[in-house]
Structures are given as C-alpha cells and as structure tokens.
C-alpha cells in the first residue's frame, strides 16, 4: 500500500511499469534473436572455453607434471583458483537466502542472476580439485560407496573430505533453490510461447498453474530453503578454510580463518555479481530493473565485507607478532617483504584500499566506477588466495627446500578457460531463462515501483 510508504524508500523498478510491461521486458530476451553484442561475447566465451578444454585434456592425458607444482609448493594456481571460484559462488546464495530472511526487497532484481552465477562458479571451482587429484577418472573414490576394496571408506575426519560434502551439498541446494524459483517464470514463458517452444517450457515449468495453494507452498519452500541455505553458505567457506586452518603450516593454521574466509567470499562474490550485472543490464537493457539503487546496496555490502577482510589482515599480523612464535612471525613478514611481495601488495591494495572508495555516495552510485573497482576487487581476492596458499608454503621450515613457483602456460590456460566456461554458461542462461525473477519483481511492484513512490529516474 503506497500510502504507508516511507518517504526515504527508494524505488527498485523504474519506468512506470505495469505487470504486463514487466513480463514483456523480462521474457523478451528469451524470445528475440540475440543481438550482435551478445553474439560477439558468446563466441569469445566459447573460444576461451576451448582453450580451457584443451589445457584440461592435456593435463589429464600427461598428468599434473605439466604444471609447475614442486616438492615444496604442492598447491599453486589450481587450489588458488578453486578457492577463488568457490568464494565467488557465495554471493548468489547470500543474496537469495540471507537477504530473503532479512526481508531486503532489493534482492528481487538481482537474485536470479546471482544464483545462476553461483551455480556456474561452483562448477568452475569443482573442476580444480577434480583435475588436481591427478587421476580425474577416479574421483568417485571421494564418495563413501560400498566398494570392492574392503569396503574401504574415506576418512570422515579429514577437512578435505568435509569439503567434498560441503561443496556437493552447496551445489545441490543452490540448483534446487534456483530451479524452484524459475518454475513460475518458465510458466510465464510457456504461456506466451507456441509450437515446440511451448512444449519445452511446459516441461521445464513442470505444469505450474499458480493457484493460491501453489503460491503458499512456494513461499513456504522458499523460506525454509533460505533458512537452510544461510548456515550452509557460511559452512561451505568455513570448511574450505579448514583445509588450511587445521594444518600445521605457519600462515595456514590460524583460528581467524573461518569468519575471515566467509567475509572474503561474500566480498569477492558481490564484486563478481556487480561485474556481471553491469554487463548483463547493458546487454539486455535491464536498467529499469537493475537500478542504481541495487548497485548502491551491493556496494555497501562490499564496503562492509571489505573492511572486515581488512581488519582480518591486520589482526593476523598482530597475532603473529603477539604469538612470539618465530615461524609464524617469519611467515607473515615473508608475505609482505619476501619474494612474493607483489602479490601481498596486490591483495592489500585491492581488498583494503579499493573498497574504501565506496564511502563516497558519488562513487558507489556511479556505474563506470563500480565496474572498474569491482574488477580490481576480483583481482585482489585472487591475490589473497594466492598469498595464503602459495607464499606460505614457498618458504618451508628448511631453507634447503625453499622454492619459487610460476605457473606453466597450461595452468594459466586452465584458469582462463574457466572464464570461458563461466561466461558461456551465463550467456546461454540469459537466452533461455529470465535473468530477473519475474514473479518476485511483480510482487514488489506496488511497494517499490517509481510511479507508486512518486520518484522517477530524473528527480533522484
């Protein structure tokens, strides 16, 4: 009811939209032939993906000897990329689940795309442990299934095994959450389509009717899934951090890791959502649905989580000093002043300094600035994982085994290839499903449409 609306509430849907306009605008991209810009990006993504496919095939054929990992540095770009992608995969569920529980309505504009991003990012991430084990065809050994080797069970008290459970559960729940929300929107596409398209979307929408009881159950299942996904998303990166924190490597065995990793994951995830949403809203002309208010809200989350990450970096240093433990102190001094100083600088600058720009309202409501800074944050978060993983082990207890690691071309190609996979999937997704949750935007229209709030794009 617009009469109860606070005057400071900012609109989330612009352009004086009616319900039918929303359907037209959001289903539109799935019905039209893609534009040149989309096509160019899709072709580029597929080309990049093909490099990745080549490099992964090469790795599986020849073994991980084609990487530059060595006796001292056993985890390099592979695990760095794995943790980086998993971190990016956290924003989607955070937006859909935690913001649903907190009743943040701005989630409706971005949740669908963010969930898709989560799923694709987790797929990119999951590939790294898969090929890192060396014998990719034996990865099903991870799972406890009755086998002819005893049966021999996996070690349930190893954090690496917890990771298997955490990531596969996270992936499954994210897909279910995403698909449950897509069903009513597929029904909208179905009812506008004809011929074969109608049949396909009829199957995809599972015969959704939209009766009162359907919607009541829909809201119930969304809420409970959100309640389940919220601790899940926190648990996943906590468990990823256990991979390091439960070890005895200085620089890794840090009790601060779980909250610090979770904050970092949210931070990098939101940066990636922003990068992606700014591209998407441009290609699909969704400026009325993914508004500057959405961008500003996400930038605020980045500012908060970026500052948490900054505090964590400084706390780590302070604790290393306070511990009085020389190996720990060395590990941290080595990060800042050792051979990998440039990655430490990249991490500190991009993750601690860059988000501080978002204190300025001008910058956090500026699309160009946001795009540029969000990319820097993505880079910074990659450096963070590299700093933690590789620089900690590059300087062993024994100076005789100290080593330096630079990736081979194959390793770089695998990483770049994951972008190909990610963007191929995402661009494909923008053509077959509505990028913005249609039903959810309609349900907030009367509360957040510009015409109901009497604020049009011009007078903000």
């Amino acid at each position, binding site marked *: 009811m617009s009469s109860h609306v606070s005057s400071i509430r900012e609109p989330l849907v612009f352009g004086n939209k009616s319900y039918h306009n929303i359907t037209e605008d959001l289903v539109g991209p799935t019905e039209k032939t893609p534009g040149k810009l989309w096509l160019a990006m899709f072709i580029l993504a597929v080309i990049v993906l093909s490099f990745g496919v080549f490099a992964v095939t090469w790795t599986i054929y020849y073994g991980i000897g084609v990487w530059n990992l060595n006796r001292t540095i056993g985890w390099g770009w592979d695990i760095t990329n794995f943790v980086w992608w998993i971190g990016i995969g956290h924003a989607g569920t955070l937006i859909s689940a935690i913001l649903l529980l907190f009743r943040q309505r701005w989630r409706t504009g971005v949740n669908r795309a963010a969930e898709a991003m989560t799923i694709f990012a987790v797929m990119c991430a999951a590939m790294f442990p898969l090929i890192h084990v060396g014998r990719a065809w034996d990865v099903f050994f991870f799972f406890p299934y009755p086998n002819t080797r005893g049966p021999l069970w996996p070690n349930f008290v190893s954090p690496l095994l917890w990771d298997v*459970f955490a990531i596969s559960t996270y992936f499954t729940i994210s897909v279910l959450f995403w698909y449950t929300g897509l069903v009513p929107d597929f029904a909208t596409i179905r009812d506008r389509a004809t011929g074969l398209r109608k049949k396909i979307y009829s199957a995809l929408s599972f015969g959704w009717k939209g009766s009162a009881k359907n919607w009541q159950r829909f809201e119930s299942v969304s809420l409970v899934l959100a309640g389940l996904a919220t601790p899940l998303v926190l648990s996943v990166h906590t468990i990823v951090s256990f991979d390091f924190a439960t070890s005895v490597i200085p620089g890794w065995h840090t009790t601060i890791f779980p909250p610090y990793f979770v904050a970092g994951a949210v931070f990098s995830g939101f940066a990636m959502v922003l990068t992606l949403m700014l591209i998407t809203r441009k290609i699909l002309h969704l400026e009325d649905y993914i508004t500057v208010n959405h961008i500003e809200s996400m930038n605020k989350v980045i500012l908060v989580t970026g500052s948490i990450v900054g505090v964590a970096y400084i706390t780590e240093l302070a604790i290393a000093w306070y511990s009085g433990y020389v190996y720990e102190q060395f590990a941290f001094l080595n990060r800042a002043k050792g051979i990998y100083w440039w990655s430490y600088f990249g991490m500190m600058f991009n993750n601690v300094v860059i988000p501080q720009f978002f204190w300025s309202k001008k910058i956090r409501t500026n699309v160009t600035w946001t795009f540029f800074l969000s990319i820097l944050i993505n880079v910074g978060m990659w450096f963070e994982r590299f700093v933690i993983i590789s620089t900690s082990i590059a300087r062993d207890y024994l100076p005789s085994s100290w080593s330096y690691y630079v990736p081979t071309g194959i390793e770089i190609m695998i990483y770049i290839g994951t972008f190909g996979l990610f963007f191929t999937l995402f661009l494909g997704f923008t053509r077959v499903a509505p990028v913005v949750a249609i039903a959810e935007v309609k349900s907030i229209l009367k509360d957040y449409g510009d015409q109901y709030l009497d604020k049009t794009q011009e007078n903000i």
Partner: protein
Amino acid sequence: MKTKKNILFGLYDDEQDLLKAVKVSNERGLKIMDVYSPFPIHGLDPLLGLKESRLHIAGFIFGTLGALTGFLFMSWVFKIDWPNVFGGKPLWPIPAFIPVTFELTVLFAGVGMVVTYFIINGLSMKAETEVLHDRISDDKFCIAFDVTGNASDNASTFESFLNETGATYVETKEMSDL
C-alpha cells in the same frame, strides 16, 4: 485420465480487485474452487480458508533423517566396520563428525522438501499444460468456480458475481487437469 470439469472463471486486472471480490464471495457464501495469480497475493490465504502449509514439517523430518544417516553411518564405519586410529585421536571422534552431519542434514532436508513440494503440487514434466487463460501467468488474476454438473442457475449466480465485482473477462472452459 481424470474426469473433465467445467470451470467458470473471471479475470481481474489487479490483485486488490481480486481480494475485494473474494471478500464479497465469502459474504455471499459462494464456494470458490481456486484462485490463480502470476505471483503470491498476500492476505489471500485466510480469505480462502487455506491452512498454513505443513511443508516445513516435512523439511524437519527429512533433516532429522539426514542428520541420523550421517552421524550413524560415520559412527558405524569408525566403531564397527573399520576401526582406525587417525593421528592418535579417539576411535569415535564426535566433534569431527559435525561438518559432514550438518551437510547431510541440509542436503536431506532441502532435497526432501523440494521433492515433496513438487509432488504435492502435482508438478511433473509434461509437454502439454492446460491453463485457464494464458495471461494468468502474466498480469491477470483469476477466480475460478467449479460448475460441473451444477444447475445452470448456480452458474449464472457465479457469473453475475464475477461481473459485479469487476472481472474484465469471464469464460467457461472444460478442463481435464485442474
């Protein structure tokens, strides 16, 4: 094949019109078969006399099942099937079971609930979906009455009710899947 039903339905342009109409139908004691809408209408469930969904109870049961599965399975492996000492830790390291137990709780609860949700909503993959009107998933709000085998005077009561309360479109359709 289900028996065919005759459905009389009216479309409204706004969810507020529909809510008002449902109130009127309650006053007159007209039995609405169902309401269809493009998004959930808040405040509709009590007017239609729908009870709160019990899906979350299903979720709880599945979750409990998942927790028990995880915990008991790991206990069985560590205590009975293949006792092994890892790093001098106890044979039954309960705290180390928490992560996997938690993940399985969430997995079972989530999957179980979504499957239950699809089943009780009668959702299944099929190439043809019968809908009352194509715009119901777009921008129209629909009240439907079951007029199968009813005397025609009953149908006309419903029809005049729909017209009076501001329905912009009224039709009777034979449906086999509602």
